[in-house]
């Protein structure tokens, strides 16, 4: 079986600093992968390249057979809309929109009718145990609740890959664990591929495997073909 995400020879530099220095990586469909490594090692740049947010200076990324690195910005936007979901550490909800409205945004962007989108959003909130918070603004939610709303929003379009960058980084241990369990449950159930940056080994322990990025390269054990 060919890997869902295949990255070959990824290189990317910002000015004088080399963020990625030749990365080869395969991620299987439905796999949960933790990306670890010291700060500034290039984890986020790797994630951005895989998701088509940033184009590498050289190298290729293909997702499900589509060569992401060859697409125009508009096509990559469309790909992000339908195939990818994103969760960040904090502050990713639109502060002016209620929880349920926040979740409808990707659906509306995908062209769904408002009424249907609202129904789907309520359902998504319910699955994360947040049915009661539907009409609250992000400012009125706790950190854990806000993260769960963000997860609901990322997954509501049923993407094939969920990219998460320190999704529990700003939460305490218990809240982090609750958020993670909820996210993992949904991801495993739907067979979504999860690529999750984390510096926390306990978070990484939820993954099927971890890859370690150091100085823009994968740690030896993670290189393709070495396993």
């Amino acid at each position, binding site marked *: 079986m060919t890997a869902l995400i295949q990255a070959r020879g990824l290189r990317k530099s910002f000015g004088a600093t080399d963020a990625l220095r030749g990365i080869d990586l395969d991620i299987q469909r439905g796999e949960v992968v933790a990306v670890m490594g010291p700060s500034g090692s290039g984890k986020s740049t790797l994630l951005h390249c895989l998701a088509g947010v940033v184009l590498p200076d050289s190298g290729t990324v293909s997702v499900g057979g589509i060569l992401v690195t060859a697409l125009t910005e508009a096509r990559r936007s469309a790909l992000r809309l339908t195939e990818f979901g994103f969760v960040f550490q904090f502050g990713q909800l639109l502060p002016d929109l209620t929880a349920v409205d926040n979740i409808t945004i990707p659906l509306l962007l995908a062209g769904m009718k408002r009424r249907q989108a609202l129904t789907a959003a309520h359902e998504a909130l319910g699955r994360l145990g947040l049915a009661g918070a539907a009409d609250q603004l992000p400012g009125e939610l706790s950190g854990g609740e806000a993260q769960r709303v963000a997860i609901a929003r990322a997954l509501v379009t049923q993407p094939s890959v969920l990219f998460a960058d320190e999704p529990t980084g700003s939460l305490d241990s218990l809240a982090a664990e609750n958020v993670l369990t909820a996210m993992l449950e949904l991801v495993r159930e739907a067979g979504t591929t999860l690529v999750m940056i984390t510096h926390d080994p306990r978070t990484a322990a939820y993954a099927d495997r971890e890859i370690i990025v150091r100085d823009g390269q994968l*740690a030896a054990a993670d290189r393709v073909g070495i396993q």
Partner: protein
Amino acid sequence: MDNSLTLLGLLSVEPSYGYDLKHTYDRFFGVRKPLAFGQVYASLARMTRDGQILALADEAGGGPDRKKYEVTEVGRTRVSQWMFTPDIPSDTLQSNLFAKTIIALLVDDNADRLLDVQRTEHLARMRELTREKQGADLMRVLLCDHALFHIEADLRWIDLTAARLTQLRNEIKLP
């Protein structure tokens, strides 16, 4: 930590007298608890018996402390095997991992890889524990969490050490 393997590792840096070996050991690992001479000679005798080291030709005024030992090929293989076999994550692991790292640096082997291998082992154990938590009762979960936090502490030490290897290498250069 395994004293005799550590001594064997030190000997693989360069041939040494038992007396010097003890002092080198103490310098790196005996800060809290220096090694007794008797222990050193007992280990040397055992390693000689196992063919991991051999005593060089006696020099003038022989005696056990005037013998110079050298590591054999068997001994080198043993050291390498020891270094790159990850330990089972446990409370007592740390000093052994530390010893392995120092020896790897001293013999100019790949300390990075050693730490990576150990990290992988640690994470594998953590995954195991995390899986165990799923669906378990709270007591079991808390027990797993206890183990997880300890392993995590080790992992943090591994990360920190990995980040400081170059500095460490410079500091332990044998005189």
